[in-house]
């Protein structure tokens, strides 16, 4: 028999300490990150609210699992804040600024200026000092594209109204952060008004030059020489925004301004659909940004939040922000000739206050401009703005017609399919130049028969290296299929590329027409380019113009595309050449890339380009029929 009392005695001596230390703090933090967002999303509220509320629950004003004196969470939260602003800068679609310049400028200016004016007026009317009043205006004028995923899912991402709202975010966030830089700099840097002004202006100029000119060059160089490892590429991105934030701090400007500008600077080097952006998003969403939001939630104080003063502040902030954004949408509706639903969609996209607002508020709090009442009032504003935006977008997204044709650039998403890894350098170099104006992504595929999967792995590494050397953020994959054309057609159906480039070592062994490239072009809606030859560098671009091409009305697409590709690849270094025979290919010099619309019969009989030169034959889906007729 077991004597239960004898067992109980030693157990009574066991002491269990209350949990403390970093392991406990991180466990509690991650518990909130895991549980908070799904709980709120279940109630159809954005996950961000779950993180803020979770922060309150575990913080000093809640269960006090993480006390007021804790330094780990605030320090990590600071890094999270920098990360958040870096991501905000790096994922902005700068191409939209160019495409919808006028609309973006009009809407961007009014949707910043009106809430800024209303917010500052409210601050001054409450006898706030100028720094606090201006910072309030700036934080109300910014917005976060929190409901953009909903709009994208509704198929409206290419709608002009949506593109305008997204493009305007670049302006509003930049302008807000410049005001924040000036205001916080004025509080941190000592001296006369003039000397402070000079210091801030000098700091901003240095920061902009570093982030938008020097940093991208340095990172591009580092990507080429050090970035063959995915981890190194990720760490280079992190180091970039930390360097920019440090420089900003040294110049008396808030670190988040540096992080945001670093994001803008690396915008083209880190395409939104690229693997590096995936990693940045992953770590940001999993660790850094949630910890920042939880650390902000720890400032939440229900006793302060329900005070009359806080609620009054919150009501004023909501009126200025939502009212200002509404007024901006109404003005833009008239100026840009939008329908009511389109204007409402723009309003829904620009009403949410989250990232930039929180960042400015936290900075205002940290430099002693705002007290806890203001922070709690802003948290109420964030909650209300997000709920309002969700309701607006849910209501109008079904009333705005989905654009029929996706008006995206040819360089948005390029697929480079190769059989020979030796063509990777030229394939990726061309892809990189075509993708650059659209900040697009280039994906590499290496054809591989099912039986040779293992044998092709080293070639895949070669492809990756060539991609990085071309300055691309690419993660090539094997295309396992016994037929390149068949495999490629399947991939195209899944990935919907804007351009397919098919590498072909020689035109003499397999003519361009009758090849995998032609078969793919016949079956897919995307334009196809066949790349022949191996150029080691790209110098002059020769654009072929033929009488046949001019005469053939149906072939305009290939001619236009060839022209556009020539401009993208060669810039000003493009020579147009009229040809009469097929011998033109032989006359190419090393470094020359010849671009020919595939409707010219000459290319049908062309020979291989000489070593060091390359030939690009531009096809489109109408070509097989043309050639059937020609033959």
């Amino acid at each position, binding site marked *: 028999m077991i004597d239960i009392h004898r067992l109980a005695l030693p157990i009574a001596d066991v002491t269990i300490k209350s949990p403390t230390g970093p392991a406990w703090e991180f466990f509690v933090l991650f518990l909130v990150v895991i549980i908070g967002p799904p709980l709120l999303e279940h109630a159809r509220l954005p996950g961000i609210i779950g993180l803020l509320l979770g922060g309150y629950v575990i913080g000093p004003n809640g269960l006090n699992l993480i006390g*007021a*004196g*804790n*330094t780990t969470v605030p320090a990590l939260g600071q890094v999270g804040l920098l990360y958040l602003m870096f991501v905000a800068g790096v994922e902005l679609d700068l191409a939209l600024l160019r495409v919808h310049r006028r609309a973006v400028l009009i809407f961007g200016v009014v949707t910043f200026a009106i809430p800024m004016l209303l917010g500052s007026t409210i*601050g001054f009317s*409450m*006898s*706030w*000092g*100028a*720094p*606090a*009043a*201006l910072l*309030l205006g700036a934080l109300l004028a910014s917005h976060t594209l929190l409901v953009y995923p909903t709009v994208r899912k509704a198929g409206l991402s290419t709608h002009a109204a949506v593109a305008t709202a997204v493009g305007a975010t670049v302006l509003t966030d930049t302008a807000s952060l410049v*005001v924040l830089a*000036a*205001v*916080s*700099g*004025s*509080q*941190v*840097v*000592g001296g*006369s*008004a*003039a000397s*402070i*002004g000079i210091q*801030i202006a000098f700091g901003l100029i240095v920061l902009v030059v570093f982030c938008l000119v020097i940093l991208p060059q340095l990172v591009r160089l580092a990507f080429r020489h050090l970035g063959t490892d995915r981890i190194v590429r990720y760490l280079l991105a992190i180091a970039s925004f930390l360097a920019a934030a440090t420089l900003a701090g040294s110049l008396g400007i808030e670190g988040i301004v540096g992080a945001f500008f670093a994001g803008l600077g690396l915008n083209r080097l880190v395409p939104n659909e690229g693997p590096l952006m995936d990693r940045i998003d992953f770590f940001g969403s999993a660790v850094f940004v949630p910890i920042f939001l939880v650390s902000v939630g720890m400032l939440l104080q229900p006793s302060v939040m329900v005070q009359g003063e806080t609620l009054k502040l919150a009501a004023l902030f909501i009126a200025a922000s939502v009212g200002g954004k509404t007024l901006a949408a109404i003005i833009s509706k008239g100026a840009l000739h939008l329908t009511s639903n389109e204007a409402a969609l723009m309003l829904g996209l620009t009403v949410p206050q989250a990232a930039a607002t929180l960042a400015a508020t936290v900075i205002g*709090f*940290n*430099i*002693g*401009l*705002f*007290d*806890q*009442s*203001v922070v709690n009032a802003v948290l109420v504003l964030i909650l209300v703005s997000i709920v309002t935006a969700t309701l607006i977008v849910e209501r109008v997204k079904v009333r705005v017609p989905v654009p029929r044709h996706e008006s995206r650039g040819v360089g948005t998403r390029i697929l480079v399919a190769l059989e020979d890894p030796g063509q990777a350098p030229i394939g990726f170099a061309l892809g990189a130049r075509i993708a650059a104006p659209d900040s697009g992504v280039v994906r590499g595929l290496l054809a591989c028969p099912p039986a040779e999967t293992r044998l092709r792995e080293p070639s895949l590494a070669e492809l990756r290296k060539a991609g990085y050397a071309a300055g691309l953020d690419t993660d090539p994959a094997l295309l396992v299929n016994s037929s390149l054309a068949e495999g490629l057609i399947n991939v195209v159906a899944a990935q919907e590329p804007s351009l397919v480039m098919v590498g072909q070592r020689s035109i003499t062994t397999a003519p361009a027409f009758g090849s995998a490239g032609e078969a793919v072009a016949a079956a897919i809606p995307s334009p196809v380019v066949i790349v022949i030859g191996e150029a080691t560098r790209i110098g002059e671009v020769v654009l072929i113009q033929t009488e046949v091409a001019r005469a053939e009305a149906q072939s305009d697409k290939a001619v236009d595309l060839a022209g556009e590709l020539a401009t993208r690849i060669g810039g000003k270094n493009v020579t147009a050449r009229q040809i009469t025979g097929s011998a033109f290919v032989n006359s190419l010099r090393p470094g020359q890339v010849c671009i020919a619309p595939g409707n010219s019969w000459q290319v049908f009989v062309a020979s291989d380009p000489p070593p060091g030169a390359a030939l690009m034959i531009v096809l489109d889906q109408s070509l097989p029929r043309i050639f059937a007729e020609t033959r």
Partner: protein
Amino acid sequence: MGNGAPARHSGDRTLSRRPPARIACTLLATLLLVACSDRTSSPAAGVFTPGTPGVLTVVTSQIPTKGFWEGTPSHLTGGFEYELARNLAQRFGLGSVRVRIENFNRVVHGQLNGADIALDLITPTSERAQSLSFSVPYLTSPPTVLVRTGTAVPDLATARTLRWGAVRGTTFAGLIDQVIHPDANLRLFRATAGMLTALEERKIDAVLLDMPLAVVTATRSRGRLDAAGQLPSTETIAAALPKNSANQQAVNSAIRAFTADGTINDLLKMWVGSAAADAEKSIPLIQSTR
């Protein structure tokens, strides 16, 4: 020429648009510059209402305290906490600072002698928070071992063999018992001055002090005392206010502002010495499992 006209027209349009944009930018820049010159507290950062109009009343336990309260109670000449009080008064738009003396043990139990605020190297604890409201910290202060020069404290085992002293009511008394477990009984003192005299007279071998105080005491001892090591800790020093004081938000905002604009660091360097600002990096860490 024909091609030139539209270009000129376009250029004129651009020029005609520039002045309003320039005016707007200049106005914004001027407004920002005006903002630059405004560094006083505003209601957005909380409102401070003193007990006596126009006067910030501060309580502390001992004057002088090297580096923190210099001079005499009737003639204060400076010190980190005195200057911090003066900066607070200036930010709140108060004309003067009045200083009262109160026993430390009474202060940490909420007896502020009618003062608006206590500045006395107070470490916030949950026990003290029952009778006081604390501001955000203005200093981080790892407990630092002060010994006579020549006494080495490389590890906890050596520390255990020393005779320790602490001021009654401070967090250090509990810390010495919990972390160091000295072989000899801990000797308690009523005030820091008496404890330091006992250290110099070899009645005790070591004491724990807040790092800035330990550093300034060692610096001014003419080589007799030495800050020999720091204990791993995230302890901080904060201002104390009467429990549930309505002034807490304003004081918090002020201390955050002074930290951000470098006032705290400047005061620390000026009154406690440059060594204190870098002390956390230069004083050896005594590892413990605490």
